[in-house]
């Protein structure tokens, strides 16, 4: 039996709105080709698909409520910058794919958002600020979640032959266009003015051992060096990786010694790399 042709029947309208909110690809298809709505007996002129996409952004934002505790500054910046709905609307299709893969824990949600916001922020100073604050808060989340039950009491003495530096505990390095400590000060001083946030280049090391969790500001080159410390490469190999040859090894040694001295690194014995010297 043919169903009666009547535009905008309630059940169909609800089905269309729900499908558009739940499935970004459907929403995109109707945006490109509004006649798809006409075929469903919904008048495309009566449905603002841009607004529906924003509403899907709200729903996506609410899915991240469980991360608000860890992403306080990120959410505050998003809200204050007026980019909250925009970000989550743009992220919704990617988020759906991740949820379909079962990636729903708070850390997984933040990882997905951080991955996405890297592309989303490219070339835009305000979005880059939000990205970097998110990367800072993600690093703190990683620190809190990290397992640190490995032996921490290592000698600070460098082995004589082929020394291998390793992270002492868990290390994450972030080079950011803002100083999150200053961002926090600005946000905590009402009325917060985002124009007061200083921009530039800062490198931070987030470090967790069984005894402590800390964030250290370091020179960018030090941050770069730390990113190639993996507990497997010798200092010669690190030099090759960073400079193309091992001639810088003598210059790296004292720097690495300093990083060992402040507890960020430890020396491994290359003969038995799993053991501290």
């Amino acid at each position, binding site marked *: 039996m043919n169903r009666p042709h009547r535009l905008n029947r309630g*059940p169909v309208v*609800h089905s269309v709105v729900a*499908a558009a909110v739940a499935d970004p690809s459907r929403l995109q298809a109707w945006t490109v080709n509004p006649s798809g709505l006409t075929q*469903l007996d919904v008048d495309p002129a009566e449905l603002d698909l841009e607004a529906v996409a924003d509403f899907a952004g709200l*729903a996506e934002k*609410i899915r991240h409520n469980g991360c*608000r505790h860890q992403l306080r500054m990120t959410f505050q910046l998003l809200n204050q910058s007026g980019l909250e709905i925009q970000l989550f609307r743009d992220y919704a299709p990617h988020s759906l794919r991740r949820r379909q893969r079962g990636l729903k824990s708070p850390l997984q949600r933040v990882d997905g958002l951080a991955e996405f916001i890297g592309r989303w922020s490219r070339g835009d100073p305000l979005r880059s600020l939000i990205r970097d604050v998110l990367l800072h808060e993600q690093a703190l989340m990683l620190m809190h979640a990290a397992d640190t039950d490995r032996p921490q009491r290592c000698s600070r003495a460098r082995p004589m032959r082929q020394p291998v530096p390793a992270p002492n505990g868990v290390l994450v390095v972030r080079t950011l266009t803002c100083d999150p400590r200053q961002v926090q000060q600005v946000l905590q001083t009402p009325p917060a003015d985002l124009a007061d946030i200083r921009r530039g280049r800062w490198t931070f090391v987030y470090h967790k051992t069984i005894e402590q969790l800390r964030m250290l500001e370091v020179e960018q080159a030090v941050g770069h060096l730390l990113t190639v410390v993996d507990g497997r490469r010798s200092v010669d190999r690190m030099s090759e990786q960073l400079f193309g040859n091992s001639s810088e090894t003598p210059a790296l040694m004292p720097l690495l010694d300093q990083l060992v001295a402040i507890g960020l690194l430890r020396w491994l014995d290359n003969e038995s790399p799993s053991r501290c010297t």
Partner: protein
Amino acid sequence: MSPNSSFGCISSCRRGAEVRHVDLSPSGSPAVGLAYGPIVDPLLDRYPDCVDYVEIPFEQIRHRPSSLAIAEQIPVLLHCSTMSVAGFVPPPLGTLEAIAGIAAQTRTPWIGEHLAFISADPLESDGDSAAPTELTYTACPQLSEETIERVGANLDRLRQHFTIPIILENSPQYFAIPGSTMQMPSFIAEVSRRWNVDLLLDVTHFLITTRNMGLDLLNSAQQLPLERVVEVHLSGMSMQSGRWWDDHAALVPEAAFEFLTAISDRIQPKAVTFEYNWAPELPHRTVLDQLARIRQMLGS
């Protein structure tokens, strides 16, 4: 007596080891409460008598039954987003039984449910065997005679499952719904009148709706049957992407308090709930000041 009228007032209970129930008494002042979220436990630890009750969504209890432990400390009001009262897809029987069970357990005096939908039929193109589309957030329904009739049928069915009233909360409207033949105030008024149902006035939703849809706030309020408002919700709102949005992490705007003042001679709610359940933290002093302000404003 109508099935949804003649509520008493919620009075505060003392802490104890047992589940506390909302105590109805005939005094005139509204109780003041908070929607259950991260700020509630720390606030109650420090100021155990600062609110008269905590409102918890059924969905939160279902997802994390341990959240109901708060009922040992303080009376609980049950809220709900699952019954799709203004929708065309009924909720599963098991869900209704679960809601009824928790309602009985908490002895909530009513269940606040959204005048909205959260489930919808699949599109025809998805085939006969496709499951309904389930949203994670309630959506504003089509504002039409067809939906009003459906709300009536849904309420008839739902009321068979509960010994307490369902009250309906106005949705925030973010965009026009195709096929709508009336504005939100008329829709709410007609639903309430025709199906004899009391209301949960979400002041912030109402502000959002009137602003987004270009309606005059006070004229719109004139159309509402405010005498049927049993509970009031207050939360924050924010302007994003050219529209106003519900924001339970933001403070109640001054406009919401001003609106409540403007209609205060027409409403006598039994409960006023602050919804800060998205906020990871808020300054205690700020929350306490707002609780005190509403008690003073509405005569508690």
